[in-house]
């Protein structure tokens, strides 16, 4: 269902023509670049608590202020944003990969395998994965950022699997796949040579979707007290701010900084997602 433009000039060209994608991507890259560049300028002693006077509002002494323990908010951000993005990246990669695999197998082979996998997909779609994550994280406490990302990714496959399965079902009956079958290509070859290129925009949209869900899951777990206690993520920043009563002490810079960053991040990712959607589904574009 790729558009003509998509087929002629390729996916990246089509995406760069899409305003939503470009705006979202710019916000995302800016967030990543600023915090990563910032993390290069941070000296180890800046990370310690007490490196600044506590409860300092944003100003000359501290760009974004400090928390009750005298830690710089700006320094925390240089750690938290890349870490949260890392969670999104790892979990989304794992989830999309697993999902694509399961969806391909289910849609392509059909029959009993499909019937069983469909039930499994439906089950994991209807159960909020956050609950399983709570269960696991409350048993194995003190997980690091990467371990959490992997666990989140292991429960993020249901949605991509369903999408990919539906796409494979519709692509399978098209002429070029039938031709490929007649030439005796085997199942895997058909999947990767013939079907994969058509699935790329869908996989992109799914990847971004999983990215959003993973950051949501991470911040949700963190607020429940199950986040990576020794590292900083946006969720953990909110957790610390809430548990030290930042709202009631009117330390607005403490909670507002991670909160508005999360909002900007979600908005950026959603715009990128819309961009992928519109590129892969030209009917959406007409609606504006």
């Amino acid at each position: 269902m790729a558009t003509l433009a998509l087929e002629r000039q390729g996916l990246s060209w089509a995406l760069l023509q899409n305003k939503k994608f470009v705006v979202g991507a710019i916000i995302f890259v800016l967030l990543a670049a600023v915090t990563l560049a910032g993390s290069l300028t941070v000296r180890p002693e800046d990370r310690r608590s007490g490196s600044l006077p506590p409860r300092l509002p944003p100003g000359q002494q501290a760009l974004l202020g400090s928390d009750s323990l005298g830690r710089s908010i700006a320094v925390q951000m240089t750690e938290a944003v890349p870490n949260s993005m890392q969670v999104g990246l790892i979990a989304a990669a794992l989830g999309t990969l697993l999902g694509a695999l399961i969806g391909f197998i289910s849609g392509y082979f059909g029959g009993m395998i499909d019937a069983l996998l469909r039930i499994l997909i439906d089950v994991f779609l209807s159960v909020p994965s956050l609950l399983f994550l709570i269960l696991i994280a409350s048993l194995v406490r003190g997980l690091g950022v990467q371990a959490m990302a992997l666990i989140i990714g292991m429960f993020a496959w249901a949605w991509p699997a369903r999408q990919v399965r539906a796409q494979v079902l519709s692509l399978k009956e098209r002429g070029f796949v039938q031709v490929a079958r007649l030439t005796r290509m085997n199942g895997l070859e058909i999947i990767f040579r013939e079907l994969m290129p058509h699935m790329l925009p869908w996989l992109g949209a799914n990847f971004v979707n999983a990215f959003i869900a993973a950051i949501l899951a991470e911040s949700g777990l963190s607020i429940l007290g199950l986040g990576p206690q020794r590292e900083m993520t946006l969720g953990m920043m909110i957790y610390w701010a809430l548990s030290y009563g930042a709202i009631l002490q009117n330390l607005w810079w403490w909670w507002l900084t991670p909160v508005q960053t999360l909002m900007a991040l979600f908005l950026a990712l959603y715009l990128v997602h819309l961009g992928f959607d519109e590129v892969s589904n030209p009917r959406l574009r007409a609606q504006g």
Partner: protein
Amino acid sequence: MFTYVKYLAERIVILIATVFISISVVFFVPRLVPGDPMGAILVKMASVGGSRGQSALVEEYRRRFGLDKPLWEQYLSYLRELAQGNLGISIASFPTEVITLLRSALPWTIGLLTVTTLVSWVLGSIIGAVVGWQGRRSWLTQAFVPIALLLYTTPYYILAIIMIFLFAFHWRIFPLSGAFSTAARPELSLTFALDVLRHAALPALSIILVSLGWWFLSMRSLIVSLKGEDYILWADAKGLAPKRILWRYAFRNALLPQATGLAISLGHIVAGALITEVIFAYPGIGWVLYNSIKGLDYPVIQGSVLLIIFAVAFANFVIDIAYPLIDPRIRYSQAGRG
């Protein structure tokens, strides 16, 4: 009728599979962690100060769940206990049954979730239909779409934090937390009811606003895509009033995918609402869960997770089986959430 029976059977299979798989996950996950699950929990308990009657608790668990028996026997006795509605005993507030703790929290969660979900679904659908009907250039579209986009991409608990700051801390219109004032006595009176409503206002509003954004966006795009359909053009050519076409033709048809959307996102809504409860210290299941996480009360964590999964699975099932009944055209063979 035959196809409906088939569809129904399929849904029942999904329901049973959901319940069975989640019970199995809940059972096997703690056992994948090396060591005696009860022992591990008790060590953790001891490290945070211990609890009364530890040995009595261990004994009770060993007796009920047969922790010294082979795994499959444990699994069977676990299923048997669950079938009798037994979710185990709380560690932190021993010897209270988990089910008792959950039972007192459940009404708050159900009340909050039902009201907010229905209100946001109905309101979002209506506003979305009106704005979608107006077309792209109308000021309504220009004004509502960006706001809805922003609301939808904001997680419930983020909006909850902003709400607390604005309406409970800055302007002090609503209380900061809880479900009723500490001074109030739960009773059937107008003052108590008003007190409960005042406390529920902010949690409810933050859930409603976020979901409203989504229902608005999805209904709007449904209406926009239906506008080009032949039967709408035909109704227009017949000279029917636009209002009639919108509500009797387009809206009614768009309600079906909108109901499917509700079934799909139910789990998502519930998970978000649980964390919203934590932010507001609202005494529902989410708050119980939060406290059991803090208190390392694993049986309660397990119990609340299971209870929530069952509730979501059942609600999903109800929407699913009602769905073909409201849509006579549906092709049952391909029915489901597609």
